[in-house]
């Protein structure tokens, strides 16, 4: 019987010469990706951590059993009900954003499993697809038990099937990155940028937040997913290395594009959870500290390793670390009924902490919160007053990322208008405009929410927009977790200096 060391290299590398079809018919450029190269250029493709199917299944079985064990021990409804209410809403954000996004990763990985240019790449992608299927099923299973208790958890399955504004943005991102992508761009955009650069390390951070919040079920789930990510993310490196030899400018473009697009989405998901939806005494770090220590430094080191430049907009990312997710949170709080989870007003102690962590622009953000708090004081607390502390005008959205026009600072919003081929587009930022202009044929016909309302495709009045288009109900739409009933809010002044 052959030893593992003897048969695994043979099983991993099963490429052959074609006799009755051309190689470019087996791997069409449109779906295998650019640059199209003969297999001789890919034959040395190697993953760092090699595994067999049997080893894969054994490993995954053990990891699944560990998740079940934690669920049975501390993941029951009564355990979840003990969690802090703001944190519960961080769970709802991730419950919705994660599972079906992971399912799009199944499709993208399967494209690599068929159209990746080397057999070892294809084998790794097949494992990656199984990973992503697992990452879909585990959160759906764990959160399903919570639906009967809190119907907002129903959005774990529902979110991507709605036209909720955040679902439109998330779909715009994942449809391009994973569902509709060729094998090379998927490997660089998803495996290298999103997974190596963001999710792999962010899941470590999320697990840490969950542990601090005593949410051991979510901690275990995220940790279990992260170990899969660490394995299949390695597909990106060898793909990138080959493409770098033939078209380094293209690699640089893909990096610049996907880092920006990933930053946009994840600064919201992780930024809100870290700085607002985790109880103050349980925050191990600020979002900015986490990004600087875990994401940005590591990403720059990786770029160096491949001889790539840092993205041209890097200074914008560094500046946005201080403000973007704060702009989004304040905007979303004042439009909370448009989302499927609840929000907490930052207390004076939290605002003091935020001022210490984000001194650059906090004065302007604090003025916004003081105004919101004043409105609660005027109308008084209570569920009946929720909509009196809520925006009524239609918010506006970027024609690239589809997220609210909340970039820049309260003093200077960086939204900019583009007239192209007789149509007007608006972008939240220079990088979003730049990406649009690099591939206008890809993005020009997508309608943001404002254009859908103006064309009559979506209702113009807020109640109909919420219920008919966003598929929310009075039970599920977002509210203040305490309906404005905070002890500190009754006090006349809430100075945070």
């Amino acid at each position, binding site marked *: 019987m052959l030893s593992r060391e003897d048969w695994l290299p043979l099983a991993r590398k099963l490429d052959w010469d074609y006799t009755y079809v051309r190689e470019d018919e087996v791997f069409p450029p449109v779906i295998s990706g650019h640059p199209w190269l003969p297999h001789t250029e890919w034959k040395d493709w190697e993953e760092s951590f090699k595994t067999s199917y049997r080893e894969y299944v054994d490993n995954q079985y053990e990891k699944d059993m560990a998740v079940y064990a934690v669920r049975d021990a501390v993941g029951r409804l009564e355990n979840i009900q003990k969690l802090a209410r703001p944190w519960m809403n961080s769970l709802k954000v991730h419950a919705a954003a994660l599972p079906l996004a992971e399912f799009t990763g199944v499709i993208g990985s399967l494209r690599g499993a068929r159209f990746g240019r080397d057999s070892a790449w294809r084998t790794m992608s097949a494992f990656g697809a199984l990973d992503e299927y697992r990452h879909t099923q585990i959160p759906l299973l764990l959160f399903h038990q919570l639906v009967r208790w809190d119907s907002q958890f129903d959005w774990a399955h529902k979110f991507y099937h709605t036209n909720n504004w955040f679902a439109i943005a998330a779909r715009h991102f994942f449809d391009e990155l994973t569902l509709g992508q060729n094998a090379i761009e998927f490997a660089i955009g998803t495996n290298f940028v999103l997974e190596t650069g963001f999710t792999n390390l962010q899941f470590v951070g999320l697990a840490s937040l969950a542990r601090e919040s005593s949410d051991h079920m979510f901690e275990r789930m995220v940790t279990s997913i992260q170990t899969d990510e660490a394995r299949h993310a390695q597909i990106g490196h060898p793909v990138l290395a080959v493409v770098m030899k033939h078209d380094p400018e293209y690699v640089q473009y893909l990096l610049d594009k996907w880092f920006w697009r990933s930053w946009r989405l994840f600064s919201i998901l992780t930024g809100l959870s870290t700085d607002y939806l985790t109880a103050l005494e349980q925050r191990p770090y600020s979002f900015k500290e986490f990004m600087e220590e875990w994401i940005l430094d590591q990403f720059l080191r990786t770029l160096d390793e491949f001889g790539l430049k840092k993205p041209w907009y890097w200074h914008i990312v560094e500046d946005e670390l201080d403000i973007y997710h704060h702009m989004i949170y*304040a905007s979303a709080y004042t439009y909370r009924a448009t989302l499927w989870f609840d929000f907490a007003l930052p207390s004076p102690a939290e605002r003091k902490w935020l001022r210490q962590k984000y001194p650059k622009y906090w004065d302007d953000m604090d*003025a916004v919160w003081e105004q919101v708090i004043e409105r609660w004081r005027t109308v008084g607390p209570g569920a009946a007053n929720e909509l009196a502390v809520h*925006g009524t005008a*239609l918010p506006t959205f970027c024609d690239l990322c589809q997220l*609210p026009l909340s970039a820049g600072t*309260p003093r200077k919003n960086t*939204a900019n208008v583009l007239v192209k081929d007789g149509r007007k587009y608006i972008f939240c930022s220079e990088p979003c405009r730049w990406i649009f202009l690099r591939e206008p044929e890809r993005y020009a016909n997508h309608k943001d929410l404002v254009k859908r309302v103006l064309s009559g495709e979506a209702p113009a009045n807020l109640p109909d927009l919420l219920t008919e288009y966003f598929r929310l109900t009075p039970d599920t739409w977002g509210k203040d977790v305490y309906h404005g009933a905070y002890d500190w809010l009754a006090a006349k002044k809430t100075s945070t200096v």
Partner: protein
Amino acid sequence: MPIPLYGFLEGDTLGLLVLAQEGDTVLELARKLQEAASLRVAHNDKIDLVYDGKAIDPALTVAQAGLQALDRFDVIWRDKL
């Protein structure tokens, strides 16, 4: 026909869609935006409406100011330009 415009109020955290009438004055348009953002930004009487990089005479109408559908305008604190 109302004219949909992207309005950005200084001090606010997002842009808002404002529906203007051609006959609205520039001052009325600025007030519409302030009202729409009043949950987040305290009222300020001393404001300018800026379009295409210039402060616009508040007495002009939206049509006279040349504002067209899906243009951006800003309402800023006076004397900032």
